[in-house]
């Protein structure tokens, strides 16, 4: 028998209404938790997808579109650029490494990306089976793609466009020669092949010249974009400006564009955070009302506790403890609900959508939520506790 027993026994007595107050608290916390998880997982995913890319050189157009299409594989590209010109920039002394990519086809919605092995190194990808492409029409598939039916040694045809349903290049089937281990990046959802494969298919459409040598290329050959890595941070100052001024190409920085995008998204997050704040305030108010209205029917019991020897201070602690139990349990339930909601979202979101959500990852700001019950509980208990402190047991007990 102690204050804790007294507090819990009383809460249990009105368990239905107390559960409702607790649930209200849980909903506010769940919303905040879900937002924190979403924000951190989206940001984390964006950062991982753009790993090792300081600058993207592509066709003129929206810089955000260029980044989304070539780094995150979400949008359609702004156009193509001549290979010679791309090579010129790749050879620039300020550039440490360059990865060309060529988009245009898909297989059942998975983008086929013509590129070089540098693309795999960029993500530190390892092979689950097989090897890298060595000849045209050999493909390496990401982990998610492989799981969706593109097994080792499977054959498949690409179709035109970046979404399923375009013209099928049935006469040029690919063969899966390698499957990558999961990287938890966009790479898991891509089909990679040599630039030659992409050129071969499209050249074939024009002049049936599909015997292009491995390292030779035609003057009119094009790629979609070049992903650059700077040799030193100084390059960030001059290289983008040089490219934008001296060529018909466009240079865009993933870091800058995603920051812009997050800012746009952030506006939505702020609104949702305000909503969660209102929910929490409602929860605090609800716990306050619970404690305050309970004071009236409980006033005899509180006076009796005084008569049994409890000091005013201990009544204050008793009420505070009850508010903490309600808000603490509400917070705990809310955090669990938030994780569950994200896990559910991750499980239900279609395979094609970019971000794989996980409910089992906790983020640091959630620790801040631990302070929440203290704040909400103290806020809710303040006035009831003050009234209990002030009330005189003799007066209460005299009329009953």
């Amino acid at each position: 028998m102690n204050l804790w027993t007294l507090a819990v026994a009383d809460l249990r007595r009105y368990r239905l209404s107390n559960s409702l107050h607790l649930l209200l608290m849980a909903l506010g916390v769940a919303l905040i938790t879900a937002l924190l998880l979403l924000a951190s997982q989206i940001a984390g995913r964006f950062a991982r997808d753009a790993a090792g890319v300081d600058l993207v050189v592509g066709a003129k157009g929206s810089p955000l579109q260029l980044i989304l299409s070539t780094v995150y594989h979400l949008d359609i590209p702004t156009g193509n650029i001549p290979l010679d010109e791309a090579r010129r920039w790749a050879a620039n002394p300020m550039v440490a490494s360059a990865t060309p990519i060529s988009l245009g086809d898909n297989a059942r919605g998975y983008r086929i990306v013509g590129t070089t092995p540098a693309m795999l190194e960029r993500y530190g990808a390892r092979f689950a089976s097989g090897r890298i492409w060595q000849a045209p029409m050999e493909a390496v598939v990401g982990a998610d793609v492989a799981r969706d039916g593109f097994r080792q040694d499977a054959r498949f045809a690409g179709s035109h466009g970046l979404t399923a349903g375009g013209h099928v290049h049935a006469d040029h089937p690919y063969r899966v020669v390698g499957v990558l281990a999961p990287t938890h990046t966009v790479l898991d959802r891509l089909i990679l092949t040599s630039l030659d494969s992409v050129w071969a298919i499209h050249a074939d459409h024009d002049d049936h010249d599909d015997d292009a040598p491995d390292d030779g290329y035609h003057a009119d050959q094009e790629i979609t974009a070049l992903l650059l890595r700077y040799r030193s941070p100084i390059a960030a100052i001059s290289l983008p400006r040089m490219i934008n001024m001296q060529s018909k190409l466009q240079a865009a920085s993933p870091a800058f564009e995603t920051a812009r995008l997050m800012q746009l998204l952030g506006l939505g997050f702020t609104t949702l955070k305000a909503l969660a704040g209102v929910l929490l305030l409602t929860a605090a108010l609800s716990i306050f009302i619970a404690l305050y209205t309970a004071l009236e029917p409980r006033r005899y019991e509180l006076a009796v506790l005084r008569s049994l020897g409890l000091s005013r201070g201990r009544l204050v602690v008793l009420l505070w403890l009850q508010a903490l139990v309600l808000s603490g349990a509400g917070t705990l339930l809310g955090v669990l609900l938030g994780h569950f909601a994200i896990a559910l979202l991750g499980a239900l979101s279609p395979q094609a959508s970019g971000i794989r959500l996980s409910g089992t990852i906790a983020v640091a700001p959630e620790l801040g939520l631990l302070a929440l019950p203290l704040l909400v509980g103290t806020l809710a208990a303040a006035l009831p506790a003050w009234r209990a402190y002030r009330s005189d047991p003799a007066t209460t007990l005299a009329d009953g």
Partner: protein
Amino acid sequence: MLSLQAIRHRYDDRTAARVEVLDLAAGEPALLLGPSGSGKTTLLHIAAGLLRPSEGLVRIGGQSLTALDDIALDRFRGRHVGIVFQRLHLIGSLTVLQNLLAAQYGAGLPVDIGHGRATLAALGIEAQADVLPARLSQGQAQRAAVARATVNRPQLIVADEPTASLDDRNADAVLNLLQAHARACEAALLIATHDARAKACIKRQITLEASA
């Protein structure tokens, strides 16, 4: 055991209770009589240390209550005074036994379940130990209230109108119970009442005059 001297209590300049001298020995029962509004409840609360009088001295077992600060007074009351309320006021969220343990806890005594059960057994309600008060019959609830008031073996037991709403048989039973347990604890027993049935069985009577 209980000693009141020159007690006055005023609410807004109106004297609500006054008594010159009242001494009760250990185990001695007494009735506090007087018409409605004469200050019986007020005096009972003063004797129990629930209320500090405007003037006068209260001693329980030699301890002057005036000398205690608020927290010490709370603790002293929990430890040495047992109170039986007219409407009993058992704590509804606790079982009968837990009500007794709450009294031990409030007094700052070690919580002793064995002693709690023994106290219930002495009152013949050990079978109801783990039952919530709402489940008790009127007679059982009264026994539980007496058990809670006596579990710490207090020096003073006070009871305010313990028989007011009871039939003759129950009124008799409660009065006997209170006297028996006060004697067993060697506690002074002070009962405020205007019930004629009480007057018949307790000889020591203090009558308050209606205040002006």
